[in-house]
């Protein structure tokens, strides 16, 4: 696969799958304001994914559309990190997963705004404003969990312990990523990792939460090997295109 196409899909799939997870919460939020805030983030992310899929379809040049890329691929063709497909176990999980991704996205798009690829550069500059807000919101929730009640702190720590094992994958570059780094298109994930570690430690410190002692990490999503949740999720995502292949909207 073309390196650029692959790199576009990595960014798009992360946004698309996370957006779907958030959209599952729509109308299930703990109260109206939180429901809207969550859905807003889902909308920002699907907007981001859409422009990347459309551009990726042009790069591919095989007559597929952005929608085809989003809705008509099989599980092993999706190259999102395993973290974003993890289920909405409870509100602490939703927000911790979001905090991990928002922190990543914030530093990632800050760097991508200097990409030599004009499209990625413009996209990153635009997304950065949205992502800055997402990060502000999710980090404040982490602090609120930690400083809230015993239960909220316990739930947040449990979510951190359960999701930490999927975080290292965010910083593991694919072959395409490394090749594009040579020509200044992609972002050096090592730099992002050190910033990410710094930010998460800072927020953990403020929240009286901590990173788990167990350093075990799981990989695979970026190579198309997903967790058991991905198949069910795709069944739901692709339901409409599978049942009504000619549907338009």
């Amino acid at each position, binding site marked *: 696969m073309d390196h650029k196409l692959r790199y576009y899909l990595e960014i798009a799939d992360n946004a698309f799958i996370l957006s779907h997870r958030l959209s*599952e*919460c729509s109308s*299930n*939020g*703990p*109260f*109206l*304001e*939180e429901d*809207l*805030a969550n859905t*807003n983030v889902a909308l920002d992310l699907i907007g981001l994914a859409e422009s990347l899929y459309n551009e990726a379809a042009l790069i591919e040049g095989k007559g597929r559309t952005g929608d085809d890329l989003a809705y008509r691929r099989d599980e092993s063709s999706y190259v999102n990190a395993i973290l974003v497909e993890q*289920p*909405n*176990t*409870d*509100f602490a999980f939703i927000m911790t997963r979001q905090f991990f991704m928002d922190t990543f996205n914030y530093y990632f798009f800050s760097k991508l705004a200097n990409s030599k690829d004009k499209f990625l550069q413009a996209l990153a500059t635009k997304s950065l404003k949205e992502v800055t*807000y997402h990060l*502000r*919101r999710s980090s*404040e929730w982490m602090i*609120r969990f930690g400083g809230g009640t015993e239960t909220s702190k316990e739930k947040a720590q449990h979510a951190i312990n359960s999701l930490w094992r999927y975080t290292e994958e965010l910083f593991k570059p694919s072959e395409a990523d490394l090749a594009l780094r040579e020509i200044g298109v992609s972002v050096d994930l090592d730099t992002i990792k050190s910033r990410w570690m710094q930010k998460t430690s800072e927020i953990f410190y403020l929240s009286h939460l901590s990173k788990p002692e167990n350093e075990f990490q799981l990989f695979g999503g970026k190579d198309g090997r997903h967790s058991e949740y991905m198949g069910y999720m795709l069944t739901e995502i692709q339901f409409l295109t599978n049942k009504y292949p000619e549907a338009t909207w």
Partner: protein
Amino acid sequence: MKSLKLTSMKNNETQGPVWEVFIQSKPGQPYKHAGSVHAYDKEMAIENARDVYTRRNEGISLWVVPAEAIVAVSSTESSAFFEPADDKIYRHPTFYNLPEGVKQI
């Protein structure tokens, strides 16, 4: 969504206190009351206000105020407060001629 277990939070008492939201639409314009939101703290209040009331370019600035900090005239007091002004039409500056070029005073 089967995996979502938020039902225990679907209770009015867990929404936090009410905050009143004021939006400024343009620089220099007064802040106007837009509605209210629930939130546990200041940060959450301003973010909820942003997400609920400014998604469609409604404004460039926001205030949130704890609803309990607002002092209001009760409806029973309303006549004593406002009716004495009813018959004092001369207090309106409508008898002046506006200088040319002035759009608003």
